[in-house]
């Protein structure tokens, strides 16, 4: 009875993680993370450097093999599958350092993102819409390598949008960008969320976390040490310990 209930819950949630573990030699980077993200929810993952956030993303996306644990995407188990198969199942991600296709244009970067998903004939139209949403139409013919750091972040998010995924992992999408780029990014995230996508967001910018995240998960030493709303997390002693190493 209990197992049936659990399965029903899993089938309803776009992203479910169960006991994810990853060791690098003697170091445990992710130590049994459980997490469930509801539809259209934006969950922020915060924590000090080295707490396992990016490794967690790589495990979910299939870019690192996990030692233990299971992952469900839209109710379908994707544990152990290669990255390309997990992507086709509906997961999209950005990287901490923008991973663009440097030697092709901005427009072609967006087109390349659509090759495995959606209606290919409509891809040029969708690329145009995406560039307008992200206000990068004026650099459509520029090589990706010619963009500023902020524009590169926007383009990477644009590639995610082109895929129309159900779950999006954003790894520091607004780190170090101009406030105007940050505003464009925030609006775009809200728009994509409203159209039905679910987000898991690694972010160090607490203002951004406060603005867009419905829930926050705090990681330290590979574990989830706290979970809740922004205000709950801000007052949490475990969180303060994780960040400052002592109680304040």
């Amino acid at each position: 009875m209990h197992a049936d209930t659990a399965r029903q819950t899993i089938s309803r949630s776009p992203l479910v993680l169960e006991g994810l573990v990853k060791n690098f030699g003697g170091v445990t980077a992710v130590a049994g993370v459980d997490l469930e993200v509801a539809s259209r929810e934006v969950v922020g993952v915060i924590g000090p450097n080295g707490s396992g956030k990016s490794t967690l993303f790589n495990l979910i996306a299939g870019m690192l093999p996990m030692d233990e644990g299971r992952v469900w995407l839209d109710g379908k188990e994707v544990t152990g599958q290669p990255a390309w198969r997990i992507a086709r199942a509906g997961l999209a991600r950005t990287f901490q350092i923008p991973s663009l296709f440097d030697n092709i244009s901005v427009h072609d970067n967006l087109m390349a993102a659509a090759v495995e998903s959606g209606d290919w004939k409509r891809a040029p139209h969708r690329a145009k819409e995406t560039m307008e949403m992200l206000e990068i139409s004026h650099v459509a013919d520029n090589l990706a390598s010619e963009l500023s750091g902020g524009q590169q972040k926007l383009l990477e998010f644009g590639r995610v949008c082109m895929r129309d995924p159900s779950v999006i992992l954003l790894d520091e999408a607004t780190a170090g960008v101009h406030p105007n780029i940050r505003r464009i990014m925030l609006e775009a995230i809200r728009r994509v969320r409203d159209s039905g996508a679910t987000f898991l967001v690694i972010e160090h910018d607490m203002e951004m976390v406060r603005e867009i995240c419905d829930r926050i998960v705090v990681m330290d030493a590979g574990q989830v040490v706290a979970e809740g709303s922004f205000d709950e997390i801000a007052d949490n002693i475990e969180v303060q310990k994780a960040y400052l190493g002592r109680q304040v």
Partner: protein
Amino acid sequence: MVSKLSRSRFSGVLASFVGLVILAVLPGFVDPYSLRIVTGVLMWAGLACAWNIVGGYAGYISFGHSAFFGIGAYVTGILMQRDLGIPFLATLPLGILVAVGVAAAIGGPTMRLRGAYFAIATWAFAEMLMQVAIILDITGGTAGLSLPAYLNEFFFYYTMLVVALLAYLGTWYLLERTRFGFRLKALRDHEPAAEAMGIHTTLVKVQAFALSAGITSLFGSIYAYWVTFIDPRSVMGPEITDQMVVMVLLGGLGTVWGPALGATVLWLINRYIWSELGDTTIYLPILGLIIAMIVLFLPNGLISLLPGGRRGGGLMGRLLRKL
């Protein structure tokens, strides 16, 4: 902006048309020796185009393409022997099939390797295949294999012309106008990001390798019938791949028409040295010097000097960093 683009496109179409007309009527205006040189240019342009699919579009440096050239040459050579007597044209698809099959089998494991490991693996494969050709009876071993002579330079000129044109137009369409091209360029520029977009990178790389091998084999078949005598060194020697690589780098890595430009310039230099100095090894240090000059001064190749040539210099650097 629009009229500028249209004008540029019109100039391109006009230049292509004029070029085609010149190529079509050329045999009526040049002596047989010059025609043979131009036939060679067409063959090398086609080979450079084939290598560019893997080296320029997928970003993997193959030093094993001479093996596919040799496969095409030997399939045609063996099948056209008197006891089998298969017509030349019928041998072409068989050569392609064998090369594509071998490339798929080799590509499966080797295209999971990166950088220098892939280059070394393909080089070792080509060397191995050349040694096999040396010891087998069916290939004639080091004594080589003679094919029935067909002494019609016009036939070989037009065959090379048609096949080279088809190779370039097919490559242009496939790599610049279809999903396959986007997949290939994506994995070249950032393989993990390409996978994160759902691209099955290993499969796409093997497809590109097989396509490239098929085209290379086709030119090997035509070459064998053209020169009427082949041996392992002449159709599987490493110089064949070396020339393909240098031609692509010289013309413009990862561009559609750059390899044709590189092949034209390099093959004319090759023939000039040969006619002036005879069969000398001086060509090899010249090849090395050309590579060094391109890396230092012309990372985007000769094509970047033409109007509308590619800007930026990332591809050459990316490829070299992989080694």
